[in-house]
């Protein structure tokens, strides 16, 4: 298990006292800054080159991040917001709080991706994860899953970003027939949890055969726990992607540092931390490649991703269909 020394997490506290050092505030979600997330290593690496003090402040998850930003408005003392996904960026752009990043560097995403306001730092595929010792032949599509008597646990799109991702996954794969798929899946869904953690906890406790998570989730068990029993089931419809992005605020107190941070985000020092802390794919594959174990993750035959605008206009109707189908 690769654990970042705890002291690193607090190393910034000591440097706050020096008044001349500029402070770059980055607003992000909680698991990014936690001791087990990328935050501590990213902070140490950036502070080594920026002559600044990088301070993360964190809220629950991506959706909460957007709500927090809307509450703070132009008063926010953050210069960078890190951790929205592309299902939320249309709404984020509409707030008018973001400034164009002006960067031209590309990325290694499996689909073309460019946004004038947001730069990706990692990405992953949503997938249903199962235990190979308990389930020999996993379903290969939503239809097979719906026809089986397997029990899955998913997350609520109203309170969780993966939950919203699943909603758009089904919508992207099935369009107008999404309602029928949800109706057919209803008896497979034992329950819907408010967030990812509760679902994953229930899955590992043996309550469900499969859980909505990521294709890279088994990498955690493989690398950190030396446990090869977990796997993600490839679906023939393709897998919807989550692309996590960061952007600069128009009212950034430190616009130059913000630009420097967004550039740094694309370098190996940042990207090489991502796979084994956020358990996602880095947006730029580092020179050293991916850690051992990631090669065993499934590669979906087809990558699904709505543009920010498509996601924004699809989600309200998709939510209504979801609620109707599962409330019967």
């Amino acid at each position, binding site marked *: 298990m690769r*654990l970042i*020394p*705890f002291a690193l*997490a*607090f190393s*910034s*506290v000591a440097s706050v006292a020096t008044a001349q050092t500029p402070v770059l505030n980055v607003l992000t979600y*909680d*698991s990014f*800054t*936690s*001791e*087990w*997330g990328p935050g501590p290593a990213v902070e140490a690496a950036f502070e080594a080159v920026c002559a600044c003090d990088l*301070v*993360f*402040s*964190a*809220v*629950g998850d991506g*959706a*909460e991040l*957007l*709500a*927090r930003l*809307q*509450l703070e408005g132009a*008063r926010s*003392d953050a210069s960078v917001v890190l951790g929205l996904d592309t299902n939320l960026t249309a*709404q984020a752009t509409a707030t008018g709080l973001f400034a164009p990043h002006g960067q031209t560097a590309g990325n290694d995403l499996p689909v073309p991706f460019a946004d004038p306001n947001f730069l990706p730092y990692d990405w992953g595929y949503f997938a249903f994860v199962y235990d190979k010792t308990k389930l020999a032949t996993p379903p290969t599509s939503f239809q097979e899953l719906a026809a089986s008597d397997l*029990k899955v646990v998913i997350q*609520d*799109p*109203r*309170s969780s970003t993966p939950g919203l991702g699943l909603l758009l996954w089904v919508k992207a794969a099935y369009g107008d027939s999404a309602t029928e798929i949800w109706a057919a899946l*209803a008896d497979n*869904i*034992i*329950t*819907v*949890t*408010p967030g*990812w*953690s*509760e679902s*994953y*906890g*229930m899955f*590992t*406790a*043996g*309550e*469900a055969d499969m859980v909505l998570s990521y294709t890279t989730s088994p990498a955690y*068990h493989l690398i*950190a726990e030396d446990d090869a029993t977990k796997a993600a089931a490839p679906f023939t419809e393709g897998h919807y992607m989550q692309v996590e992005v960061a952007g600069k605020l128009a009212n950034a107190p430190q616009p130059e540092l913000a630009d420097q941070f967004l550039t740094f985000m694309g370098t190996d020092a940042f990207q090489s931390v991502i796979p084994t802390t956020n*358990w996602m794919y880095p947006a730029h594959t580092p020179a050293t490649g991916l850690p051992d174990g990631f090669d065993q993750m499934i590669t979906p035959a087809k990558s699904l991703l709505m543009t920010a605008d498509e996601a924004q206009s699809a989600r309200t109707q998709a939510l209504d269909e*979801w*609620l109707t189908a*599962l*409330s019967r």
Partner: protein
Amino acid sequence: MADRAVTLIAAGLAAAVLLLLLAPLAALGLSTRSLALSEAELAALRFTLMQAALSAGLSVMLAVPVARALARRRFFGRDVLVATLGAPFILPVIVAVLGLLAVFGRAGWVNNGLALLGLPAFSIYGLQGVVLAHVFFNMPLAVRMILHGWQAIPAERFRLAASLGFTPAATLRHIEGPMLRAVLPGAALVIFVICLTSFAVALTLGGGPRATTVELAIYQALRFDFDLGAAARLALLQFALCAAAYAVATRISLPLGFGAGQGRTGGPPAPNGWRRGLDAVFITAAALFLALPLLAVVLNGVPGLRHLPASVWDAVLAAAVRSTLIALASTALALSAALVFALAAARGKGWPALAATLPLAASSLVLGTGLFLILQPLFRPADLALPVTMTINALLALPFAFRILLPETRTIYADYHRLGASLGMTGRAWLRWVVIPRLARPMGFAAGLVAALSMGDLGVIALFAGEGQATLPLLVQRLMGAYRLEAAASAALLLVLISFALFWAFDHWGRRYADA
């Protein structure tokens, strides 16, 4: 005696409570222009009311025989059992849910047992699971409140009844019945309102969006739609439901009027024969229902303790120290306010009870968001983390403290008020010599509950948390978010142990002091 002073202080406190509860709604831009509910919101309202009514009714119904059995029996382990009754209530939601699932879930002990016997499986997912979980959380609370009621009946009453040859039925009607009529509506009210704002339990065990509560609709308004006005409207609806429930409970409830005893309480007489067997059944069943999920929490948490990285222990220690300090400060605040409200309510005023009940119906998300909007232009939110956390914890714990203190405060007032007045006692002397000694038992329990609750709350304060201020619940959440489920279970176990230790220390003090 300082009757008017108490009423004045209570009025000031009530105004402060209302301001704390309603200002956030105003900050969110509550417009009363369109109060009509959408179809989905009506469905959420129906489900919310149904599960809350079922949970409160069942919790109280089941609590009465258990409390009575505990009041009249003495057995080995009774003290431990009475103390443990506080435990389910103070469990963090996700920990409790995983504990309940280990017992009642698809792969749980009960279903494994049923399968061995060739019986069909029990599904916890649905309304039955929501109610089961709410009864698990709240029935023990009801038992403790009703037990206080039984213990507050002066021993002379039971002796008088015995010398008059009362049958058990007559004792129930003339002595225990009036006590239940005074205590049960309040207990049911508290549980009903707690369940009104349930969200994670209802959704997780409810099996999906069928189990949408008003609180989840608020979540959707704030997180999915970012419609602040809609969230404020739904939050107002919760307050209205709470006020309506309060009005109903007040109509049903009757004040006690036994007259003063000699301050001795021995509990009701303990009949032998089949009643003894029945009491044993009630106590055993309740103990198993509570202990098995708790045991599962312990079993989940123990294996990870050995592998917990040193950094986690450091964080656990730091978070525990911080949480304990917050808990102590919140307890002092909540208990003082509750005592003032209870004294004012004992003087026959209705509004202190309403003011001390409304915080239960507060949506913590709306409260936190509103306070954030109010304070953020003036302060850095992270600078306010400590005072906001203490105030909000105290506010949210006030209803419990008040409800626990109220029945005995009323009795004291009815029994000793004139005596105190005739002796010309000052307010302070009256508190010192009459009120505090007789309130020790409920005060200890209330303080324990408040302290333990303050350890666990995350909702409101999340918006104000800054860097390096990880509380234990936040740490548990972070571990879970980082796939460290085993470590999370261990950290959760430590959280539960510290909460319970705090609860036990206060509660034990109260019971020792009262028995002395």
